[in-house]
């Protein structure tokens, strides 16, 4: 989910503090435990994204693996590097997920749950 900077959209009861926005460098992430859910908050390409850290494949720590890009093909079917710093790979089996949507790159049956991220007065909150 794209970063939401308008707290009016959210019910305060559903906002959960993560950390100060400055604590996450571009291309980095934090993993926090909120009400029993392990949630990873990424800062990448000037946006924050939050995903469940529980891999829908076999339960690995999906958001703790490599944050990178992937290989795609362009309109001429030439190989290109794509989605730089927007693809996280579960370290257990290498399954690739798009951090902007939680979607698995090869199948829409294995999406990681994603959460809205709010920036309020320099702090990050996830909503659920």
């Amino acid at each position, binding site marked *: 989910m794209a970063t939401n900077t308008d707290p009016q959209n959210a019910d305060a009861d559903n906002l959960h503090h993560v950390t100060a926005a400055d604590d996450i460098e571009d291309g980095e992430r934090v993993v926090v435990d909120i009400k029993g859910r392990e949630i990873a908050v990424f800062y990448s390409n000037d946006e924050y994204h939050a995903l469940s850290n529980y891999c829908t494949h076999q339960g690995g720590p999906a958001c703790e693996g490599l944050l990178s890009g992937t290989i795609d093909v362009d309109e001429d079917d030439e190989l290109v590097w794509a989605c730089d710093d927007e693809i996280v790979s579960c370290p*257990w089996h290498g399954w690739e997920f798009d951090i902007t949507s939680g979607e698995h790159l090869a199948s829409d049956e294995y999406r990681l749950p994603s959460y809205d991220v709010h920036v309020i007065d320099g702090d990050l909150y996830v909503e659920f």
Partner: protein
Amino acid sequence: MSSQSTEPATVRSLDDLEVIVDTDFHLTERQEDIFPYLEDPFYSLLNSQSDGDDYGYLGRVYPSHGMLYSVTVGKADSPTVRTSEDIQKGKDLIGWDKAIATPTQNLYLGAVHHDDLAAALAKAYNRWLLDNIIDTDNGVYGAALVAPQKPLKAAEEVDDLADEPGIAAVMIPSGSVDPTLGNEIYYPLYEACERAGLPIKMHNAAGTMMTRFPTQWRSLNRALPVHATSHNMMHQVNLADMLTQGVPVRFPDLDFVVQESGLGWYPYFMRRFDHDYMGAKFDAPMLEKKPSEYLRDQFYLTSQPVEGADDPEYLNQIIRLFEGENSLMFSSDYPHFDFDYTDALMKIMRSEFNGDEIKNIYGETADQLYQF
């Protein structure tokens, strides 16, 4: 529950199992582990320089396939397993009570060009295994590695290790065998294994396709299609040769374990080979019953990688079709990138198999076969 009870046990989760045996738990041995155990002349030859050249000796001794895997590019981790502490981490994750340690680099032993060195490397690996890895008090057993390039030396190695309590099996790195495993050059090795009461694990590696199917390997030019086809393809080739040459008839007390190749091809192969055999008995005159019956009686299959884990109807039927309740054994393949987590199979099987059958697959069958 009374021991006299004939009611099948109830198994709802891993907690209900008395024993979990991981029949394919990998080590990630490196040259610095193995080289100190080499015997001369290779110890003097290979340890005479501190590090070999910049590539390291093993990079030159074991052919490299050069394929890009998720681990190669950092998209999956593959933890190191070279010490008892490393093993404990894997044991805690998978939750096994007993495991049979198998190698990683040495899955390519059969592709080593220098056949006498290959035999020496097998021997050195086994000594490293005995000194550093096997720990029966902690459930850690090992498979004695043999070099298929030198079957007579392989037989000697089996004789030497037959009485080591932590050695539960013999492993042939079968992906590069030349000739294939029905050939009479292997009979002394089979005799030694039968004499020692040790089953033979047959384990390929995807990259060994470059040695036995070089044109196909070259043509595919990605890791994905090689990995998806090579393990079961080479197993079918070896099994077809072994059955045709009557290996299970010649060695009736010898058991074989077919490793890491998925499930669905196996019941297919049983029926396909039986089908062809009905019109070609003259090619396999040694056989006294249908080929598939030898597979049911003397061959076992390890579970990983379980394909179709999201499709219960498929998976349960497939396991029934080769009577997996008697011959399938759980394996994790930890720490490789395509390892199976422990309950991946059980979650599916509970809808079809009773508790006793699940217990067989998760440990009882292995306990009987390997006689730990």
